[in-house]
């Protein structure tokens, strides 16, 4: 614990693999993924569709069980943390905001109520303000919300659990351009204002450039390059990274043969 807090690593993934399918038809979605996320930072996982980004996030909060490898939270294997405690500490926001029936308030209180915790109206109002919604939105029915508002509510709902890490699975991908830009700015602001550690997944290169900080490129379940995002995007060391940046990464380049042809 002391060693990890000293180096500031909040979340660490080592040699993580995830396979699906029965014997004979096994398919490897993640292949030996290792990464370190410093505490309080914004970590971006960039990669094309189908590269295993969402699977990686789901292995972190154990919505999926990895086939091999480990995920460490504050140096402790997540498999040793009671699942519900882990998921309280490591929150998640999905691509489409799936809200529970009822009001915005019902949704924000969902997590705390599971643990029989009270949350004052003031605290709920503060949460809504933090995600850029008016305080009186609490009474609104979820059916009246726009896509952008719904995603903000799902963010407030995740924050109500007071997580230490927030996993964001393409949270702006299903929003219109305006709402997408607003939610993106909100996330960057939250990252700057709080101690929260963000793990942000996107397929959008321009978005990755804008949100910056540290990150990696994931292709075909493998980490291609990892480091300060601005640096690795400006000066790619691998052909795969170069092809991705140029928008020329095709199915062939994803295969081991394509990767080898350097």
């Amino acid at each position, binding site marked *: 614990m002391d060693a990890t807090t000293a180096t500031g690593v909040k979340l660490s993934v080592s040699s993580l693999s995830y396979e699906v399918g029965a014997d004979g038809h096994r398919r490897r979605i993640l292949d030996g993924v290792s990464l370190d996320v410093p505490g309080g930072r914004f970590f971006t996982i960039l990669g094309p569709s189908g590269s295993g980004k969402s699977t990686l996030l789901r292995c972190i909060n154990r919505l999926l069980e990895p086939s091999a490898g480990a995920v460490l939270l504050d140096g402790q294997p997540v498999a040793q943390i009671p699942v519900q405690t882990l998921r309280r500490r490591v929150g998640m926001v999905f691509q489409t905001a799936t809200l529970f029936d009822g009001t915005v308030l019902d949704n924000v209180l*969902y*997590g705390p109520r599971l643990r029989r915790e009270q949350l004052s109206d003031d605290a709920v109002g503060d949460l809504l303000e933090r995600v850029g919604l008016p305080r009186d939105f609490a009474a609104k029915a979820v059916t009246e919300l726009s896509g952008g508002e719904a995603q903000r509510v799902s963010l407030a709902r995740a924050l109500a659990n007071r997580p230490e890490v927030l996993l964001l699975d393409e949270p702006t991908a299903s929003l219109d351009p305006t709402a997408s830009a607003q939610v993106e700015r909100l996330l960057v602001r939250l990252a700057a204002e709080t101690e929260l550690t963000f793990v942000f997944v996107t397929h959008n290169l321009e978005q990755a450039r804008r949100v910056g900080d540290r990150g990696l490129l994931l292709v075909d379940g493998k980490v291609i390059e990892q480091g300060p995002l601005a640096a690795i995007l400006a000066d790619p060391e691998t052909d795969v990274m170069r092809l991705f940046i140029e928008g020329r990464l095709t199915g062939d380049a994803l295969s081991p043969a394509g990767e080898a042809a350097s």
Partner: protein
Amino acid sequence: MSLAPAVAGSHFSFENVAVAVVMVAVAVGLSRWRRLDLERDIVVASIRAFVQLMAIGYVIDLIFRSHSALAVVAMLAAMIGFATITSAQRLRGLPRRYGIALAAIGLSSVATLGLMVALGIISRDARYLIPIGGMVIGNSMNVASVTGVRLMQDARTQRGLIETALALGASPRQAAQSVLRRAVRLALIPTIDSTKTMGIVFLLGAMTGMIIAGAKPLDAVRLQVVIMYMLLTAVAVTAVTVGLLVVGSLFTAEQQVRRLGEAVEA
């Protein structure tokens, strides 16, 4: 058409049945005319119904004559067994489906029948236990299938909602609460509605049989009421049991949503 009408004496002859085959012919004719391509199914179903019912008629006749309590219990157990297999086959892909169907159908029918017999409301006579038991088991079977199938479908379509709840720290049962509630409610609606409209829309089962057999309508009505109350309890117990057990099977020990397509029989 020189046949004597059968209804008056409630004695149906094979000749009466043979004439009723006209009904099947009409159905087959309709199917052919509208190209429903169901002729074969209709004929097979009609023959099966005849053979199965004849066979069961002889079996029940034997049990009645034997005056053996063991034979009654064996008959009810066999019915529960067939109901379990029928229901479990609907839940393909779900781990422990036979155990789930057996637990739900067995628990609800044994509990309701046992209670009614223990309270002295229903005689332990084969004449009562077998037909009433058949109704209870049959209704439980239908409700078990509907609840289970609906839950499996909803778990797939509402996966996002369930995983959202899990990701917020909900237990599997909390995460599946809304789909569980909906599936159980849906499965119970037909029984509740037929109880509501009993006597207005439906003159079902036992009462119809008793009236045709010449019983006094008020006797028939009282038995029908008892049976409906029993069925309500039986289907409620079945739906809730199936619901809770299926929800258990939808998740892994690590509280993850199980991929049912890849589910291995446990």
